[in-house]
């Protein structure tokens, strides 16, 4: 049998280990859960720009992995993006597009436009056919005005005056559908966003902790990290939480030394080129 010629490596994922994983699952192995941003993320357009909002809980299955993570990612000074889905995917894809946008700014000499970010995100996600699990709310203010878009893992996009994504999206959308109207002021917009995120925090198990808000208007962006903290820690131990050396009782001690196994060989073959 002749040797197969080397095929050039194709890009994309390699699914070779899937059969091995299936075998392991059949033998009773528990797959470790992904860290997901369970999440409630929202965005709305108001009279002077856009307001984005997000909760701050990151989950690994039923466990809260991070109580105060940042889900509103920087894309450009005038464009921010909230991310729901697999945390690694949202981080990676927003970082990547943010870098691409910066290179584009250097090449064109102009401020980035939201539609540019949108096209870069949607073409990347479409080419991975939904396997990059990133659901995003992209918002910004550029020369053409305020823009708000949602991007789905399969690569489709929607352009809307108000949007919600993530496991808490239904709770947040109910708030928006009742109270949103065109021409909101800045204060009203922030209040409505905070209310929608709180609806997700309190009614969705995958969302929780604090409310982050980001307001983008012409020439100015305000990232209001932890705008609301509706879940403060209510019990604090009076004994404190530092554990001084000597506080733990030692019951027994056993020392085992490691036996080194090294054999030195004299001579041997000279290295050949």
């Amino acid at each position, binding site marked *: 049998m002749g040797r197969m010629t080397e095929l050039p490596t194709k890009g994309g994922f390699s699914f070779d280990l899937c059969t091995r994983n299936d075998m392991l699952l059949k033998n009773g192995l528990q797959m470790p859960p992904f860290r997901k941003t369970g999440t409630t993320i929202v965005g709305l357009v108001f009279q002077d720009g856009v307001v984005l909002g997000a909760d701050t809980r990151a989950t690994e299955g039923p466990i809260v992995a991070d109580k105060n993570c940042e889900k509103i990612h920087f894309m450009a000074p005038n464009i921010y993006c909230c991310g729901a889905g697999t945390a690694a995917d949202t981080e990676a894809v927003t970082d990547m597009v943010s870098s691409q946008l910066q290179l584009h700014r250097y090449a064109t000499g102009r401020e980035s436009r939201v539609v540019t970010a949108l096209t870069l995100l*949607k*073409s990347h*996600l*479409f080419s991975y*056919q*939904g396997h990059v*699990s990133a659901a995003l709310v992209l918002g910004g203010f550029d020369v053409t005005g305020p823009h708000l878009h*949602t991007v*789905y*893992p*399969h*690569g*489709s*996009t*929607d352009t*809307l005056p108000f949007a919600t994504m993530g*496991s808490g*999206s*239904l709770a947040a959308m109910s708030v928006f559908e009742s109270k949103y109207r065109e021409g909101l002021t800045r204060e009203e917009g922030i209040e409505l966003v905070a209310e929608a995120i709180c609806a997700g925090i309190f009614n969705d198990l995958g969302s929780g902790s604090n409310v982050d808000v980001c307001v983008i208007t012409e020439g100015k962006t305000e990232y209001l990290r932890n705008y609301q903290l509706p879940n403060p820690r209510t019990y604090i131990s009076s004994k404190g939480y530092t554990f001084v050396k000597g506080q733990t009782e030692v019951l027994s001690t056993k020392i085992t030394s490691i036996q080194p196994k090294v054999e030195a060989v004299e001579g041997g073959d000279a290295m050949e080129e």
Partner: protein
Amino acid sequence: MDLDLSAPHSTGTTIIGVTYNGGVVLGADSRTSTGMYVANRASDKITELTDNVYVCRSGSAADTQVISDYVRYFLHQHTIQLGQPATVKVAANLVRLLSYQNKNMLQAGVIVGGWDKYEGGQIYSVPLGGTILRQPFSIGGSGSSYLYGFFDQAWKEDMTHEEAEQLVVKAASLAMARDGASGGVVRTVTINAEGVTRKFYGGDTLPLWHDELEPTNSLLDLLSSSVPEPMST
């Protein structure tokens, strides 16, 4: 009840394209669903390819958006190279080539409609496998199942613009009443020698059919209204 928010976006949809004497009228509903959740209740499924050719999209939202973007790009180049507006046939053919050559990976059923100076108003249907078929009128999407009989009866050659528009709006609202995956508002686009006109038909402007309720702010209002007369033989 599992809403399945991770299901790919599909335009459940009702899409319609009809020719009339002078051009075409394209119509669509506005519902985009992920599983059982309505992700966008006011989406625009009629997308521009060139000044004189538009496409109604149904099937996977991602697939049809990407196809439209590619075809818009190719047609732009083609128009520059040709030196005059692209014909509807060329636009429809480009859509068909992408759809047919990638049939294993795509889920896209579209209706391409437009006007050019050679053939006037034309409608081309490009359903799931990548067939291309020129028709005097075409229907597509999950809601179209409810419209075959309606069009057999109501369609006629050489309608005026008003008749064609009313036909499209009536058909779309009938399908939206019966198909769960279609709903929202009706959008129409008219393309003729003069150019392109977009129209929007919101909830209260659409006719109500058998057993449909008046849109209200609260269904609790109905409880306080009087009890209807019992039936008598």
